[in-house]
C-alpha cells in the first residue's frame, strides 16, 4: 500500500521530488568527499613530515655564522636530539633558465641545496630520499604543477647545464604559500655554482620531545645565537602544508551544510503544502481513531525512499570525484597510510545526512498532533494564527494599488510564515555581496596597504649583497636625477636588540625611513613622525604585549634608547613580525633596502621597470602590479571564482525557494484566493499580490542583507584574511555592483520564481474552494 501511495504522490509532484533528490544526493556527495579528503589530508601531511623528517626548530640566517658556538649550544642543550646547519644558495631568478622561461619574475626565493645528512630530507614522489648525481637537478613539485618544467628538460643554472631528473617534496617549503623553494643538486655541482649566489643558512634542530619547543625557542634566543632571519617551527610547517587543501575541505563541508539546508527547505515547503492539501483526510484519519504515528508513516515512507535514493546516489558519485580532488594532496604530500579509513568515514557522513533528513521530516510531521479533527473536517484548511495589522489599514492606506496593499498586508500579518523566505533572501544577498566586496578589496591596489606594503608604482628590493648601503646610494642618485619620478622613499631595515623590562633581549627588525610617503593602513595610531616614535606590526605588538603609548627600548650603537609605540599595522612580510621607525643610524649594518617610487606618468611603468632592471642588475625591480599579481594572484583568482560561484548559487537558491514557497502559499491560500475571485479580483490581480509579497520581503531582505554584509561580512572576511597576515581590514565596495546590479539580479530571480510559482494561482475553482 505504501508503494502505491508513494508512487501516486511522486507522479503528482515530479519536479519537486526530483529537485529534492538532487539536493540530498549533492549533500551526500559533498559530505563524503569532504570526509575522504580530510582523512587523506591529515594522513598525508603526517607522512610528508615523517618521511622528510622536518626540523622542529628552524632559524633562517644570512650573514656571518659561528658554527662552533652553535655546535656547542646544541651539545650542551639537553633538549636537542639532532642538530645541523644547511646551506641555501639563493640565486637570482634570471640565473635559472628553463627551456621556455627564466624565473626572473618569480616572487619566490629560489635556492639550491644538497641533500642533508641527518634530517630535513628532500624526498621524491615515491617518498624516498633523493641522492642526486652530477648534472642532475630535482625541482620543487609546485613547479611541476605550474607546468614550468618537465622531466628530462635541460635547465641552465648560472650558465651550467642540468637535466631535470625528477621532482621533490619538501616538508618545509612545499606549499605555494611558502615563499622559498629549494632545488636539489649534487655536492660537486653545488660547489661549482656556490659563488654565483648568496648563501643563507638553515640552522635546524630536532628535539627529543616536541612539547619542549616553546622553552627551547626561548633558550635559543637567550643564548644570543645567529638570528638574522625568520624562525619557523614544526607546528607551523604542518599548518602551512595542510592549509590550502584544508581550506578547500572546509569550503566543501560548508557548502554541503548549505545544500542540506536547501534540501530541508525543499522538504519543508513541499511537505507543508502536502499537509495543507490533505488536511481534511488527516482530520478524518484522526477522527476514525488512527494513531498519529500511523498517519505519519504514510508521509514518512516517501521521504525514506527519497533520502535513501539521494544518499546512495551521492555516495557512489563521490567515487568519481574523489580521484581528481585527491590528486593535489597526493602530488604534494604523497599517499596517506590511513586512506582505507576514508571509506568508513564517508559512509558515516552519508548515514548522517540520511538521518538528519528523516529527523527533520519527523519534526515537521509533528504538526499532525495539532490538527483538530473537527476543524479539519469542517473547514478543510488549517486555522492559522493570522492577526490583522492595526497600523496598516486599507481604509487609511495611501498606497496607489490595492494589490500592493494586500501583498504587504499579508506579509505583515503572517510574519512567521515569511521568515524562511526572508532568511533565504538575506543569505542570498549576503553571499552575493561579501565575496564581491572581498574580490574588489583584494584586487585593488590599496589592498597591499593592509599587508604592510605601501602603494607605489615601482618597488626596488636590494638585499643579500655586499655593501648594500653603497649600492642603494647608487640607485638613489639615479632616482634623484630622474625627472619622471614624482616621489620616492627609501626604507632601510636594520636589526636591533630589543630589551625587555625583565632584562631579556631579542632581535627586532626595524624598517627605517619616512613612512608617511607611501602610507600603509594602520589598525591603530599613525606612522612614526618623530625620532622617538616606533610603529609595530599587529603580531609583534601582541607578542610583546604593547599598545599605543607604551614604550619599548632598543639598543642602538651600544646605547639604550626608549621609543613610544605610535602605531600598530598589519603586515604579512617577513613573517609579520616587524617594526617601523624614522631615525638616523649610520653605524648599524643594513640588512636590506627597499625603495618605492611613484611615477609622474603611469604609462612609463614598464619602460622604467626595464630601464632600472638593466641599470641595476643586482636589485630586484618590480612594478607593483606584477608584485601584487605574483604575491596575491592566486588569492585574487580564488576569490574571484568564489564570488562568481556564490552569485550563481544565490541566484539559483532565490529562484528555487521563491518558487517552492509560492507553490506552498497558493495551496495554503486557496480559500482566500477563491474569495477574492468571487469579489471580482482577476487572475492578474492575484498574481500581482503574490509578486508584491515576495518583492516586499525581498526589499527588507536586501536592506538587512546589505547592512549585514558590510558589518558581519567585513568581520568574517577580515577573519579569513588574517590567515594571510592582514589583521586589520576594511571593505572596498563597488557601489554599482553591490547596491544596484546584484539587488537587481536578485529581484529578477525573485520575480521569475514568483511568476513560475504563481502561474496557476488564478486557476483555482472558486466553487471547490469555497463551497461548503
Amino acid at each position: 500500500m505504501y508503494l502505491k501511495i508513494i508512487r501516486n504522490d511522486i507522479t503528482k509532484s515530479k519536479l519537486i521530488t526530483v529537485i529534492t533528490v538532487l539536493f540530498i544526493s549533492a549533500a551526500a556527495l559533498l559530505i563524503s568527499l569532504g570526509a575522504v579528503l580530510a582523512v587523506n589530508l591529515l594522513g598525508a601531511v603526517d607522512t610528508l613530515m615523517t618521511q622528510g623528517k622536518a626540523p622542529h626548530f628552524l632559524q633562517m640566517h644570512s650573514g656571518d655564522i659561528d658554527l662552533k658556538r652553535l655546535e656547542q649550544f646544541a651539545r650542551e642543550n639537553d633538549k636537542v636530539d639532532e642538530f645541523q646547519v644547511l646551506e641555501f644558495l639563493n640565486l637570482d631568478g634570471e640565473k635559472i633558465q628553463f627551456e621556455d622561461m627564466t624565473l626572473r619574475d618569480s616572487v619566490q626565493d629560489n635556492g639550491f641545496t644538497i641533500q642533508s645528512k641527518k634530517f630535513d630530507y628532500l624526498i621524491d614522489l615515491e617518498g624516498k630520499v633523493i641522492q642526486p648525481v652530477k648534472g642532475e637537478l630535482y625541482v620543487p613539485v609546485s613547479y611541476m604543477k605550474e607546468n614550468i618544467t618537465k622531466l628530462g628538460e635541460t635547465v641552465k643554472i648560472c650558465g651550467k647545464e642540468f637535466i631535470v631528473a625528477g621532482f621533490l617534496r619538501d616538508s618545509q617549503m612545499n606549499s605555494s604559500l611558502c615563499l622559498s623553494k629549494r632545488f636539489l643538486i649534487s655536492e660537486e655541482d653545488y660547489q661549482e655554482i656556490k659563488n654565483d649566489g648568496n648563501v643563507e643558512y638553515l640552522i635546524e634542530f630536532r628535539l627529543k620531545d616536541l612539547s619542549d619547543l616553546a622553552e627551547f625557542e626561548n633558550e635559543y634566543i637567550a643564548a644570543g645565537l645567529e638570528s638574522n632571519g625568520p624562525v619557523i617551527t614544526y607546528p607551523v610547517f604542518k599548518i602551512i602544508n595542510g592549509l590550502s587543501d584544508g581550506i578547500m575541505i572546509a569550503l566543501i563541508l560548508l557548502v554541503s551544510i548549505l545544500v542540506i539546508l536547501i534540501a530541508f527547505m525543499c522538504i519543508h515547503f513541499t511537505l507543508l503544502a502536502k499537509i495543507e492539501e490533505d488536511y481534511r483526510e488527516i482530520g478524518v484519519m484522526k477522527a476514525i481513531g488512527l494513531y498519529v504515528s500511523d498517519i505519519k508513516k504514510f508521509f514518512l515512507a516517501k521521504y525514506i525512499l527519497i533520502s535513501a535514493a539521494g544518499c546512495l546516489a551521492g555516495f557512489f558519485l563521490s567515487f568519481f570525484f574523489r580521484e581528481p580532488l585527491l590528486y593535489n594532496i597526493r602530488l604534494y604530500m604523497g599517499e596517506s597510510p590511513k586512506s582505507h579509513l576514508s571509506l568508513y568515514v564517508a559512509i558515516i557522513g552519508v548515514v548522517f545526512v540520511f538521518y538528519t533528513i528523516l529527523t527533520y521530516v519527523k519534526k515537521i510531521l509533528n504538526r499532525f498532533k495539532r490538527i483538530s479533527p473537527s476543524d479539519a473536517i469542517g473547514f478543510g484548511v488549517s486555522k492559522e494564527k493570522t492577526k490583522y495589522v492595526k497600523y496598516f489599514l486599507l481604509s487609511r492606506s495611501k498606497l496607489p494599488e490595492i494589490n500592493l496593499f494586500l501583498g504587504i498586508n499579508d506579509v505583515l500579518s503572517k510574519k512567521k510564515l515569511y521568515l524562511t523566505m526572508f532568511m533565504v533572501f538575506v543569505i542570498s544577498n549576503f553571499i552575493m555581496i561579501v565575496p564581491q566586496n572581498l574580490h574588489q578589496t583584494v584586487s585593488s591596489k590599496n589592498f597591499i596597504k593592509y599587508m604592510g606594503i605601501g602603494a607605489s608604482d615601482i618597488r626596488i628590493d636590494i638585499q643579500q649583497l655586499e655593501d648594500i648601503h653603497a649600492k642603494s646610494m647608487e640607485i638613489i642618485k639615479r632616482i634623484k636625477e630622474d625627472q619622471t619620478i614624482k616621489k620616492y622613499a627609501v626604507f632601510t631595515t636594520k636589526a636591533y636588540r630589543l630589551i625587555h623590562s625583565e632584562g631579556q633581549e631579542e632581535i627586532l627588525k626595524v624598517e627605517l625611513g619616512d613612512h608617511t610617503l607611501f602610507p600603509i593602513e594602520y589598525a591603530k595610531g599613525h606612522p612614526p613622525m618623530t625620532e622617538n616614535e616606533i610603529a609595530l606590526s599587529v603580531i609583534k605588538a601582541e607578542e610583546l604585549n604593547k599598545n599605543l603609548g607604551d614604550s619599548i627600548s632598543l639598543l642602538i650603537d651600544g646605547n639604550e634608547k626608549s621609543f613610544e609605540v605610535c602605531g600598530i599595522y598589519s603586515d604579512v612580510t617577513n613573517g609579520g613580525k616587524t617594526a617601523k621607525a624614522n631615525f638616523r643610524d649610520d653605524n648599524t649594518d643594513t640588512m636590506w633596502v627597499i625603495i618605492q617610487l611613484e611615477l609622474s606618468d603611469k604609462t612609463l611603468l614598464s619602460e622604467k621597470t626595464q630601464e632600472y632592471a638593466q641599470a641595476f642588475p643586482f636589485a630586484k625591480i618590480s612594478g607593483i602590479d606584477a608584485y601584487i599579481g605574483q604575491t596575491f594572484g592566486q588569492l585574487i583568482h580564488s576569490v574571484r571564482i568564489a564570488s562568481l560561484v556564490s552569485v550563481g548559487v544565490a541566484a539559483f537558491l532565490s529562484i528555487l525557494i521563491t518558487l517552492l514557497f509560492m507553490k506552498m502559499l497558493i495551496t495554503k491560500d486557496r480559500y482566500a484566493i477563491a474569495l477574492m475571485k468571487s469579489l471580482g479580483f482577476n487572475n492578474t490581480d492575484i498574481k500581482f499580490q503574490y509578486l508584491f509579497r515576495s518583492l516586499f520581503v525581498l526589499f527588507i531582505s536586501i536592506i538587512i542583507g546589505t547592512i549585514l554584509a558590510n558589518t558581519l561580512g567585513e568581520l568574517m572576511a577580515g577573519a579569513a584574511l588574517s590567515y594571510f597576515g592582514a589583521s586589520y581590514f576594511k571593505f572596498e565596495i563597488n557601489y554599482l555592483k553591490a547596491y544596484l546590479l546584484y539587488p537587481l539580479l536578485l529581484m529578477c530571480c525573485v520575480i521569475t520564481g514568483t511568476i513560475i510559482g504563481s502561474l496557476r494561482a488564478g486557476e483555482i475553482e472558486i466553487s471547490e474552494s469555497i463551497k461548503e
Partner: protein
Amino acid sequence: MKKIIVAEKVVKSFGADGQCRKVLDNVSLTVYEGQFISVMGPSGSGKSTLMFCLSGMDKIDSGRVIFDGKVLSDLKEKEFADIRRNEMGFVFQQPTLLKNLNILDNIILSSMKDLNKNKEQIIKKAQKLMKKLGISELEKRDITQASGGQLQRAGICRALMNNPKIIFADEPTGALNSKSAEEIMDIFDNINKEGTTIMLVTHDAKVAARTERILFIKDGKIVSELKLPKYEGKNMEERLEKVTDAMLELGI
C-alpha cells in the same frame, strides 16, 4: 420585465472521466430583474451547483448561461472578474472574510479595486451600509471579535457595496440561529424592495417561504416551481404551508 439570467440546457458533471456524475442535467431557467428567488432541494441535488453555474463561478460542461445579455462562457477572464465585481454580489454560508483585514477593510475590499480615488466616498458608503445593517460598532474590529450573525451582515454589506444587479446567497442563514436568520432575511427583503434581484439557496422552508419564486431541484433537474406574492410581513403561516406541501409532494 427584463431578463437578468437565462440558462439554456446547462449540464455540469463532477468527477473523473470513468466515474462521472451529472450534477446538473439539462437545466433551463430564466430569472427576471427584481425577483426574489429561492432554490430548494435535498443534499446533493445540485442546488448550490446551480447557483455557482448561474453566477459563473463554476464552469459548465454544455449549454449556456446569459447574464444581462452577455454569454458567460464567451467572456474573457478579466471581463468576467469585472462583472463579478460590479454586477454581482455573493453571500456564503460561512462568513467569508479575510482574516488579515478588519471588518471595515473587508467590506470596502472589492470597491477599492478601481475606485481608489474616491476612497472617502467608499468609506462613507460602507459606514452607511453598516449602520443600516446594525453593525456600526464593528467597524474597527478584528473578525474574531464578532459573532456569526454580525459577520454575515458584514458579508452582505460587502456584497452590496458596488450596487450589484443580483445577489447570490448560498445558504446565508445556514450557520445562524433562528433570530439572526430572521434578521438577515429582513435585510434581504429590504434590499430586494430597493430593486436588487436576489437568488438564494436554502434548506429552510421558513426562509424559502419569504421569497416569491421557489425552485425545487432534485437529481440535477428542476422538478417544480412555486410562485408566491411578494412577502409583506403577513400571511407567513399560509406561505409556509404551501412550501411544506410542495416539499412533501416532491419528497424533499
